[in-house]
């Protein structure tokens, strides 16, 4: 409504020229959109890389017949919910700590943020060694304290959560920094007003901090939820979906089909993942943004 350039008789060049889109659009459409659209066709074929036979929706039917896919689907959602949930809670707590009058703030912020920058493969390998059931440092320390450590990555009930934990370890620094930014942006007046109204620290948190840091929460959730749904590197570096299929997510299932040379099937999996993401993330973003607008 504000500044729509209505069709005018003599038109001047816009201050915001459309060709500014051109370089980005060229790269993006050739290297991302075109292959993605092509994949929609290939998902309907039996594809050997050498030739593609059109088989309709057989790949999708096959994909849903995969006995592990249902588990992979559930795992993907669990993983995304657990990692983004923990990142929100832990990130918020760490940010509260780091914006309070605490000693060694610089050090704390640095050590919490640094893992964000480290190679995922490197982190995966390191934690695979640390989480080794008998020789890993974690379980050896627990044994030293007289506790029997679990089989972090080899217990089928635990493996997915162990990887999720490492994901949180690596990613919580980003959530924390986003929250710090959000908390710093809350005007002091609100706290002072609340204090005059007699709010306790806890009430301060629930009635001032939490609602006013909603934009930060929205950012953290959206980023880590999409990241969680697409996650692949870390799972691949740590468990390759194992033991068995216990920590398979859709992304790793797709990858395994791809590895096995089932290119059409794998591409169909891509489409399924996309649909899952769209179905979960679009309403989530809309929800988060609507609330934001109300504030």
């Amino acid at each position, binding site marked *: 409504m504000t500044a729509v350039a209505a069709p*005018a008789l003599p038109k001047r060049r816009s201050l915001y020229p459309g060709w500014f889109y051109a370089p980005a659009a060229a790269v993006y459409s050739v290297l991302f959109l075109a292959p993605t659209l092509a994949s929609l066709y290939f998902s309907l074929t039996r594809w050997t890389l050498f030739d593609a036979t059109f088989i309709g929706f057989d790949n999708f039917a096959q994909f849903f017949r995969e006995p592990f896919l249902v588990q992979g689907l559930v795992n993907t959602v669990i993983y995304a919910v657990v990692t983004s949930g923990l990142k929100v809670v832990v990130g918020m707590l760490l940010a509260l700590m780091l914006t309070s009058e605490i000693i060694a703030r610089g050090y704390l912020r640095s050590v919490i943020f640094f893992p964000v920058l480290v190679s995922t493969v490197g982190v995966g390998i390191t934690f695979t060694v640390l989480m080794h059931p008998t020789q890993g440092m974690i379980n050896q320390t627990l044994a030293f304290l007289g506790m029997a450590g679990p089989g972090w990555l080899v217990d089928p009930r635990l493996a997915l959560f162990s990887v999720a934990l490492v994901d949180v370890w690596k990613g919580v620094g980003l959530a924390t920094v986003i929250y710090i930014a959000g908390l710093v942006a809350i005007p002091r007046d609100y706290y002072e007003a609340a204090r005059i109204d007699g709010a306790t620290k806890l009430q301060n948190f629930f009635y001032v901090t939490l609602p006013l840091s909603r934009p930060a929460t929205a950012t953290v959730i959206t980023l880590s939820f999409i990241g969680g749904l697409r996650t692949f590197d870390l799972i691949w570096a740590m468990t390759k979906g194992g033991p068995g299929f216990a920590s398979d997510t859709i992304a790793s299932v797709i990858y395994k089909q791809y590895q096995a040379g089932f290119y059409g099937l794998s591409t169909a999996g891509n489409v399924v993942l996309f649909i899952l993401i769209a179905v979960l993330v679009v309403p989530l973003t809309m929800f988060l943004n609507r609330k934001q607008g109300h504030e």
Partner: protein
Amino acid sequence: MAGLELKNIQKSYGSVEVIKGVSLSIDDGEFVVFVGPSGCGKSTLLRMIAGLEDITGGELFIGNKLCNAVEPRDRSIAMVFQSYALYPHMTVYDNVGFGLKLARTPKDVRDQKIRNAAKILKMEHLLDRKPGQLSGGQRQRVAIGRAIVRQPEVFLFDEPLSNLDAALRVDMRMEISKLHQTLSATMIYVTHDQVEAMTLADKIVVLDGGVVQQVGSPIDLYQRPTNLFVAGFIGSPKMNFVEVVVEAVNEDNIMVGSKDVARLGVPATVAGVKVGDTLTLGIRPHDLSPATNGAVVGRVSLVERLGNETIVNIELASGIPWLAVLDGDQALRVGESIALAADPAKAILFDRTGQALLAPIA
């Protein structure tokens, strides 16, 4: 130097018409103020002159050149923005010189022009600072400096003083006025503040709803507003209005009255007015004075005693609130009734459509 000619200028966003055909001519060297309430289209009109908004219909001439499709940089205009719009990453020197740099002015000429502008605005000592280190008034100077350094033929000001505090606003107002005298360039100035309009303008253009209500000199607008809107908008405090009924139509005046106002013969154009018509009577608060047999009677509801004058809020019999500005200090009590005399020569009558029935100038 150049004048401007606007011919039936229109602007619409989709189906929403914002400027509904404005025609206006501005002489070379004139100081013109666009005034009106917010949303009246005055800023849009200014931005169309600047070239920041496309013109949907009509023609814009700057110095005899049709400018509808001319880029802003080729219109020889400069503009001062409400928020000053200084480039935060550049020093004052670079802010002022940016336009010259873009025009590829040689470095030494540029330097001389920048220093000259700084001298005019008394801000030589600020040249090395960044905008973030300046006060509001200083930023305003820089913004003006940026405009004058390019020696444009037309200056455009978009509410330049509204972000300043009251005292500074008065100072800057005088500075701009002086600047106009010094540069004798055409200036178009947008404001919603009618005091600024009255003090600065050679010519005021009152806009409302995308339509020009009246164009004229400040005093003309004050004394002879052509309609209810202009009458209410120009002058402070606002003109008082009340509905009256025509009791008699004479040769050069109309006798009106109501339960609020006793019979009053107001000079006016009498054509078409019949006895029994309802008109609106307007009297400025300054044109009322206390008198035991005054035509206007009401009850005092609030008294503001300023020493040199007294502002009295009164409630007429029909409950309409009026204001009166009385000379000197008047000891009035809230609740007491008061009678005020009105100078009929300064009163104005408006018809049902809001048009003023002004008496022809003698």
